[in-house]
């Protein structure tokens, strides 16, 4: 991490948080997606944003990255507003979207060249990092193949490489493990740990409770666009279910879906009783 970046992070630590979201509201027409969400991500932590489908996770991440404008509320990344200075914010973070969408007719080489050029990376650094990441994620054999011909998992790896290549202080990852094989998934998780050990920060969204439980230093559970619980997994355990509860149980409890799940399972069993 460069001294400039480290200074920026130090400055942020003194100021409080890498990401600050206050009373965030986002409506799509009349449809509310996020309703008064507030949370913070501090340096050195992986903040997991959990929630059922349609809870507003992806919308929140898109607003933080400057891809969407909020309807109301304040968002800042390293003290910079993604609404007013989206380009500056984007230069400080790496983002892996939920649905990885790349340039299908470019090869991996051409795609990484494009990303490195737009990010104005130093050619020598870009080459060293690209080479190592390509080796780590084992995509070298596809280096000159058009992205459209690659499997979903390989495309996901390319998106991860593109997000990591410029070594950003902040990573925003929306379901990043989707499609990754066991080896790549492990390497990626270890790299994320290394990233926060050096003072970086990660905002992470996932449906997979096991991943969240093992990776996240703190989680925020959102439902219907609102934060319904926040803390470390241990804190949430103590607060809600007591020792031994899994994150899945905590999640179902706070989203008030525990009873609903039990009822639904009973109904399904009833419906499928007849062979």
């Amino acid at each position: 991490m460069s001294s400039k970046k480290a200074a920026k992070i130090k400055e942020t630590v003194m100021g409080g948080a890498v990401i600050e979201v206050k009373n965030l509201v986002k409506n799509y027409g009349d449809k509310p997606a996020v309703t008064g969400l507030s949370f913070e991500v501090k340096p050195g932590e992986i903040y997991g944003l959990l929630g059922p489908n349609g809870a507003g996770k992806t919308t929140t991440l898109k607003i933080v990255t400057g891809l969407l404008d909020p309807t109301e509320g304040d968002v800042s990344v390293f003290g910079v507003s993604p609404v007013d200075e989206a380009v500056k914010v984007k230069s400080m973070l790496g983002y892996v979207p939920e649905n990885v969408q790349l340039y299908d007719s470019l090869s991996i080489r051409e795609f990484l060249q494009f990303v490195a050029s737009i990010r104005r990376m130093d050619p020598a650094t870009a080459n060293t990092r690209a080479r190592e990441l390509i080796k780590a994620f084992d995509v070298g054999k596809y280096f000159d193949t058009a992205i459209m011909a690659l499997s979903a998992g390989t495309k996901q790896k390319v998106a991860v490489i593109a997000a990591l290549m410029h070594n950003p202080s902040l990573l925003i990852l929306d379901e990043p493990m989707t499609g990754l094989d066991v080896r790549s998934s492990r390497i990626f998780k270890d790299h994320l740990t290394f990233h926060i050990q050096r003072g970086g920060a990660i905002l992470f969204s996932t449906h997979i409770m096991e991943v969240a439980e093992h990776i996240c230093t703190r989680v925020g559970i959102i439902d219907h666009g609102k934060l319904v619980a926040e803390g470390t997994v241990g804190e949430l355990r103590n607060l809600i279910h007591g020792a031994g509860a899994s994150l899945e149980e905590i999640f179902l409890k706070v989203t008030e879906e525990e009873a609903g799940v039990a009822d639904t399972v009973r109904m399904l069993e009833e419906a499928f009783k007849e062979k």
Partner: protein
Amino acid sequence: MKFREAWRISKTVAVESFIKGSIQMAGGLTSLSAQQDPAKAIKRMRMSLNINKIVFAFLYGLYSAMIPLMLSFGGRGFDVLFATNSMFFVLALAFLLSFNLLYMTSFVSGESLTPLAALPFSREDLSRISILSFVRMFDIPLVVFLITYPLVYWLVTASTIGAVIVLLLNVVNAVMAVFLTFFLARGFHTRILSMGGSKAKSALGGVLRLIWAFGTFGVLYLSGYLISWIPQLVPFFTAFERPEYSWVTLIYPFSFGYLIALVSSSSSQSALITSLLSPGSIMVILASMVYIIIGYLAYKRGIGALRQLALGEIEMAPKMTPPSGEIRISVKGVFSAIFRKDLKLGSRNMAYTGFLFMPIVGVVMFTFMTSTYGVIRVTGVLAAALYSSFFMVFFALMSIQFEGRGVSVLAQLPISVRKVVQAKSLVPAAFSLTMPAALIVLSFFRPLTTFYSIVIATIQVGAIYAGSLIGTTLTCTAVGEGRLPTAPLQSHMGAYILAVIVSSIFTFVPIVVYGLTYLFLVQDHLVCVATMAIATLIDVYVSTLISKAALKD
């Protein structure tokens, strides 16, 4: 499965193909959810599909009616009928090929039959649904196309049997066109679209794309002029009756034209029988039968291919390419990176690659047209510039569309929309430089009336940049609300048409200024070129000002 059921299901598949194809070509599947009202966007896209159908039906109808109507200029003898029918089949094949190639992408990228594959349908059911869905994408234009020519032919020649044979052979021709489209599309993706490799291989790829451009767009230009040339072409066709040229009548689709002319021009039944029994006619009939059998086989094979395409079983993607040399990336400047990326995306897109070569195609076509004067005239250059400019600004607008799913990548990167738009406008401008270059090359074969023709073509590059800049700025403002639009342009038809009109005006102004100066002020090329240059500078200045005001840096 009953035909009615397959027909009903095919409607859903066809509409889904169009919408899914459009969305995937534009911002990816998540883009609609970010819009204000996805239901409205889908409704607009359905409307856009219907408008497309009506426009194509009108074009096909007009085109199909024009050729037989040209008979009135050349009489109704055997030679005229032979020439007319042969030209129709040649041009119909080329015309259908061009449009099918442009619209094949929707059907291919849709993979809309995939959800049905999990349901208990047989392969035959899926084949039937896929062919009906494909037909449905072109239903109105196809019906208009198949019926108009035989109908007008019958009205003009009063030959019922001739019109029936025309209808039958028209169907065979359409099937051949669909079949050829499929193979050309596959050829484009697997052969022309190659990655990596040596510089010689890349150069060969460029040449193949130029041929592709001439094939897909040149034919559209040519068809318009060939129709008016039919009377002049008649004497050329009489040569085919001479023994040394008679083999040409056995070639597809001249044999169709010959057969129909034979049937339609006979004065009586006995005369028809006599002419049909001549050795030459028997050979032509046999050749036509062979082509009909090939058409039938193409249909049978085409159904299977369409089903596989719709299910995504046939990969319309380039093959895996082994890495060429070491793992190394070359980092460029921001503008250069966007320029190169757009160039690659455009030249690797089956529907849009031809646009990049339009300046060359335009110059060659228009100077070819004015060849009767033996020199390259300024009027021909102005016309070529006008036509090429339209395609180039259209390419700039399309460069937002063919960002495809990658538009979200660009949105994530630290670059302002204004810079992206500026870089995008440089691609058509740079390719327009091939216009003066082509003129210089052509001037070795045919003299220019004035050196200023090359200056005109060079100045027009600035106008193309201005038109592209204003068009892409308007698209980002109206469709993307100041960002790169992730919504398909088809869902904002009004804004899209406005962008096409405004950018065309910006691009045409310098040519119009040149013309007006020459016609009403002074017939001096130097003065006209000077006024054109001033108009272009104003064009560039105004478009840059508007772009700066409309988009954030």
